[in-house]
């Protein structure tokens, strides 16, 4: 079943019934903050770097046209092509056109959330081209015919047993039960694909204006094989990824892996500039950048602009009491967790995604951990107000009761959120939902620093809720 953002409540209900999901989310919510805390504990400059990164992004956004034009000029100078695409459809057609130009049958793909946004895999399949995801997590969810459930851990919701069954079903080799064997099997299968593929598609974590360079940050090396072996490399990136120079990049790379996985540095950080040079013995002959807007340019100069600073580290997901209770699929849209709630209304429209900005306990953890200091709770409040004003909410929701009633009548979720802001939901609900009129909310969300590393209240409640399983109906 395809989940939609519109069906958020139904998705949540379903998610809360999945025991396996609760288990993996429990592990993630415990370990991920610890890893991050250890990594940043060793870097006294971390907070200053966050300020710097925020300021760099703000500077770029204020001059985005300039940096994009500089970037484009450099890509062209290095022999590459830039394709500006206003919509997902335009981007899909451009990618198809490039694939067709080399008569592509098989396309390997590195991790790219932009291609998730545009549902590229289904589109390529419909057009007779086989897309193969090469990031191990993306590959697993592709086999399962599911969307990713976490922006950096796409298959985080899958247990080892589920991967065993999936691989066995699709590879028809042996029913491997050890993680190591499963990894080896995935490696073996995908290795063939890299060499067979006609086109390699990757995302981009950053675009560097100085030199027309795209950057990917990975641990597996799949992105590198994807982009260095086929004839054509297509980079899919959205507008706001551009930054001025390698020095600016150096600031971000000190934040991104630490925030994302608690690593000091990712295993592979890859900078690509144009196609292979005349004397190069390897590399793609063509280099294309599909530069996607899909609603982003409209955010500039608005109260939503700050969401464009996001570097997709997923720290806000890992620390979010709602995400770690319901998982990523419940959001029913490309991006999950707090950043998903703030960004999905841009990607799929506010009408479709109107529940997501409500999927927040306003505990403020997302903002407290965000490496580029995006005030997510504030942005969610703006969306809520806009949804209210645009009357895209049904009457019941507009009365301000629905969300609160809905959470309150679900004891398990209620318990999970109890320490983290149900009081706010109650107040907001009681206040007929027109949040603009309630300035006390800003007191709640302004830079709440959290007790590190485990977010005790939530964890304690979660454990309690787990113990009470059986007595607690979802």
């Amino acid at each position: 079943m395809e989940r939609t953002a519109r069906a958020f409540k139904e998705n949540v209900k379903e998610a809360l019934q999945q025991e396996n999901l609760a288990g993996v989310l429990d592990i993630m919510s415990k370990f991920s903050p610890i890893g991050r805390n250890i990594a940043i504990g060793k870097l006294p400059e971390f907070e200053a770097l966050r300020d710097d990164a925020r300021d760099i992004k703000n500077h770029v956004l204020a001059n985005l046209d300039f940096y994009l034009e500089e970037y484009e000029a450099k890509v062209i100078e290095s022999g590459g092509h830039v394709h500006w695409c206003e919509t997902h459809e335009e981007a899909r057609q451009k990618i198809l056109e490039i694939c067709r130009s080399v008569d592509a049958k098989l396309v390997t793909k590195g991790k790219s959330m932009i291609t998730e946004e545009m549902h590229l895999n289904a589109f390529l399949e419909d057009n007779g081209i086989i897309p193969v995801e090469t990031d191990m997590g993306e590959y697993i969810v592709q086999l399962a015919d599911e969307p990713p459930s976490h922006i950096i851990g796409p298959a985080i919701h899958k247990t080892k047993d589920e991967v065993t069954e999936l691989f066995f079903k699709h590879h028809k080799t042996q029913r491997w039960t050890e993680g190591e064997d499963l990894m080896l099997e995935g490696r073996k299968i995908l290795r063939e694909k890299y060499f067979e593929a006609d086109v390699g598609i990757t995302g981009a974590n950053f675009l560097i204006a100085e030199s027309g360079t795209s950057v990917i940050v990975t641990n597996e090396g799949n992105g590198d094989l994807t982009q260095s072996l086929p004839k054509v490399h297509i980079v899919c990136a959205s507008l706001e990824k551009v930054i001025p120079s390698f020095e600016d990049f150096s600031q971000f790379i000190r934040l991104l892996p630490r925030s994302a996985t608690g690593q000091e540095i990712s295993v592979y950080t890859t900078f690509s500039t144009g196609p292979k040079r005349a004397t190069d013995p390897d590399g793609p002959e063509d280099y294309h950048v599909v530069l996607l807007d899909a609603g982003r340019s409209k955010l500039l100069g608005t109260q939503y602009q700050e969401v464009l600073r996001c570097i997709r580290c997923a720290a806000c997901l890992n620390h979010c009491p709602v995400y770690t209770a319901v998982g990523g699929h419940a959001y029913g849209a490309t991006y999950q967790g707090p950043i998903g709630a703030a960004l999905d209304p841009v990607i799929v429209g506010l009408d479709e995604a109107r529940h997501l900005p409500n999927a927040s306990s306003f505990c403020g953890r997302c903002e407290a951990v965000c490496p580029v200091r995006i005030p997510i709770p504030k942005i969610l409040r703006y969306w809520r107000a806009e949804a209210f004003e645009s009357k895209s909410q049904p009457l019941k929701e507009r009365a301000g009761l629905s969300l609160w009633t809905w959470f309150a009548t679900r004891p398990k979720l209620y318990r999970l959120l109890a320490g983290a802001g149900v009081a706010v939901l109650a107040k907001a609900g009681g206040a007929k939902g027109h949040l603009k009129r309630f300035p006390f909310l800003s007191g709640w969300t302004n830079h709440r620093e959290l007790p590190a590393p485990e977010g005790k209240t939530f964890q304690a409640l979660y454990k309690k809720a787990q113990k009470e399983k059986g007595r607690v109906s979802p």
Partner: protein
Amino acid sequence: MTDSRARILGRIKAGVNAPNRSAADIAVLKARIENAERGIIPAFTKVAGTDVADLFLKKAEAQNNTVARVTSAEAALLEVRNFLRQNNLPAKVKISPSDRLDDLKFDDAGDLEVHRGAAVKEDVTSVTPVYCAVAETGTMVTMSGAQTPSTLNFVPENHVVIVRESDLVTAYEDSWDKVREYGGGKIPRTVNWLSGPSRSGDIAMTMYMGAHGPRRQHIIFIEGQ
């Protein structure tokens, strides 16, 4: 396409109030790129002398690289053989066609089968030089080029990297200065930062080595060179 470009840029310019940008403002922006001013560099990278090598190797080991310290090119070649033997690997390597490996004298290596060039599927072990290496995180910087095919970094299951003490810089920013020196401002098709063997945490949130790239990355560090 051109229409989309114009419309997107038009929306951006309207959103950021670009029409009010003066020539002087634009000059400032251009200078921002050209000057490539440095931001915050962590204090722990500010080391000198032999501490640079110690920091580099400590960080590299923390990222699951294996490390051997040697003091000469001859010893480095011996270490290549050791590595192959210890890991039960065939006595066969694909090496970068680079003059930076000349002093290891691979051609006189007797029973070691040596090939040069870009990687192919069958290659099991590669040996490459680095362009430079960053002590900050034990990161090796390689660049694609006629003498240094980038596929050698990713295709073989085992990657042996020859790092010399003179290759080391302390922070990322120093590596960029070196990269810019190389092509007079032009950078090669790909610059690769390698900070350890390939891994993935995508199966049941457990880290397994060797997802797609090398399962082993062995650094042979030549002191005093």
